[in-house]
């Protein structure tokens, strides 16, 4: 495997008594779409800002493409960022916004114009080049911000909550758009998000952060099916955490459990009573109270359009799951 594009070694940052990032080690490979996922205050944004150079780490190193960037100011880093607020310059046209970085590099006028047009075509905004940011919709602004960050062909594109300011419908389309651009351009994207659906659906690999530390790194599939800890299992999606032998735990996803009226022929089977059903269209989530007083979440896919065969609240039913349905956890 080639040298990673980003290597973070023992990176730490504190604000007074608050530890924002706590000795993080991380490697990001070339051409990845890497997501930093975590709740608010977990340190993901501080980590991203240290990659961009806006925050100075208290300890540790940041290497980008093999070069130590730890003390290098933002304007000398081969990295560009798309801001959560987009941070478009309101006193410049769309074309001037996109060309800003090229003018700072001293790229010739004709070359700048050509690359600005090219970048705007990539985000399908070529016909709005003469507009001001205030004359654009939210989705258009997001694409201008993207074009402005891409036009300098950075070694690394940082995206701070890239979809957070968009409405839901637009967000879904934009997810595919970002992944398409990332694959077409072959760039490395590092994205910060608090939205697990966003991280899961877009990232090739992701890091889950909690309290300034990275608690798990892996593909979305690994993180979902083989969470490293009870925290990760609980943070990503829904998990039933069952006690297992020798102080260990078992993380069992709701859709890995089968509901039936008769005792199922699976490795594990327990009886319970449905106390709540949340209908979500594509699936239904059942809260089932077991005889020992614990509550488990069970998901069923709504394959048929008729409600026949679905379960009712108060019904007594059986839960069954296979021997390998759950993932064992040490912590």
């Amino acid at each position, binding site marked *: 495997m080639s040298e990673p594009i980003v290597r973070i070694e023992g990176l730490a940052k504190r604000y007074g008594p608050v530890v924002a990032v706590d000795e993080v080690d991380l490697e990001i490979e070339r051409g990845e779409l890497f997501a930093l996922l975590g709740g608010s205050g977990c340190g993901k944004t501080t980590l991203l800002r240290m990659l*961009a*150079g*806006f925050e100075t780490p208290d300890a540790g190193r940041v290497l980008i493409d093999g070069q130590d960037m730890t003390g290098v*100011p*933002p*304007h000398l880093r081969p*990295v*560009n*960022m798309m*801001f*959560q*607020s987009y*941070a*478009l*310059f*309101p*006193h410049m046209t769309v074309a001037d916004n996109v060309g*800003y*970085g090229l003018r*700072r*590099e001293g790229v010739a006028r004709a070359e700048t114009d050509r690359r600005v047009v090219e970048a705007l075509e990539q985000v399908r905004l070529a016909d709005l080049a003469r507009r001001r940011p*205030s004359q654009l919709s939210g989705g258009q602004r997001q694409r201008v911000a993207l074009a*402005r*960050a891409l036009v*300098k062909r950075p070694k690394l594109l940082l995206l701070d909550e890239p979809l957070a300011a968009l409405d839901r419908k637009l967000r879904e389309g934009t997810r595919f758009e970002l992944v398409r651009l990332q694959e077409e351009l072959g760039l490395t994207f590092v994205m910060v998000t608090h939205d697990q659906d966003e991280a899961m659906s877009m990232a090739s690999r992701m890091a889950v952060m909690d309290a300034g530390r990275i608690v798990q790194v892996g593909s979305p599939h690994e993180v979902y099916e083989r969470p490293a800890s009870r925290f990760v299992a609980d943070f990503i999606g829904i998990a039933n955490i069952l006690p297992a032998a020798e102080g260990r735990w078992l993380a069992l996803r709701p859709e890995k459990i089968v509901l039936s009226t008769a005792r199922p022929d699976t490795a594990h089977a327990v009886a319970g009573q449905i106390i709540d059903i949340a209908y979500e269209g594509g699936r239904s989530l059942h809260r089932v109270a077991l005889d020992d007083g614990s509550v488990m979440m069970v998901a069923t896919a709504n394959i048929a359009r008729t409600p026949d065969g679905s379960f009712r609240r108060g019904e007594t039913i059986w839960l069954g799951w296979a021997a390998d349905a759950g993932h064992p956890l040490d912590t």
Partner: protein
Amino acid sequence: MIGRARFAFTMLGFGYAFLYLPLALVMFYSFNESRMVTVWGGFSTKWWSALFANEAMLRAAWLSLRIAAVSATLAAVIGLAAGYALARARNFPGRSLFGSLVIAPMVMPEVVMGISMLLLFVGSERLFGGPDRGFLTITLAHVTFSISFVAIIVQARLADFDRSLEEAAMDLGATPWVTFRTVTLPLIAPTVGSGWLLAFTLSLDDLILTQFVAGAQSQTLPMRVYSSVRLGVDPQINVLATVVVMVAACALVLSGWLTRRKA
């Protein structure tokens, strides 16, 4: 409801009359034929021609305008730097002291400032043989109190300035200075413009401080008006007041327009 609205409008009318009736009267009487300032003797523009033929008055006005323009420009530059430092450098030693020192000239009685400036200029004259009291000393004195006003409005504007714009510029390869020149300054320019106009107006009508630091040869417009009033007023004063009100109104409108344009 209609009764209440009518009452509110009546009160508003009284308020405006109280503020602007005297000014309207002054403008009206500037076209008076009579020698008496307050007795109507028919329409005439003779006092307008008299004023524009009054050499001493014009010389004083020209001096005042020059002082106002130069001191406002210096105050805008220094005030911009001070306001920027106060808004951005959050933790330098003595920051709060520096913050109070910038505001102090606004609340300091002008007499105190005048005395201290006079002592300074007299002392420097004794030590270095200059500067001569006149244009230079008046300008410097006006700069000292105008800085406060510019610094405070620049600081207030920067307090709600979106820092991510500056970060974006640096991220795209701009050095801190280029960031200031291409992003920060263009966006706060209307505020600096308002500050300049404010400083210009303050300088134009300052009398007390100017009295202390002006030399025998230099007489600004407010000083000239004040001394001519003591000798007895003639309707030229009404004309002058009208002109000053017009200039001030234009400055006010321009300043408001600049501030609104900031987005």
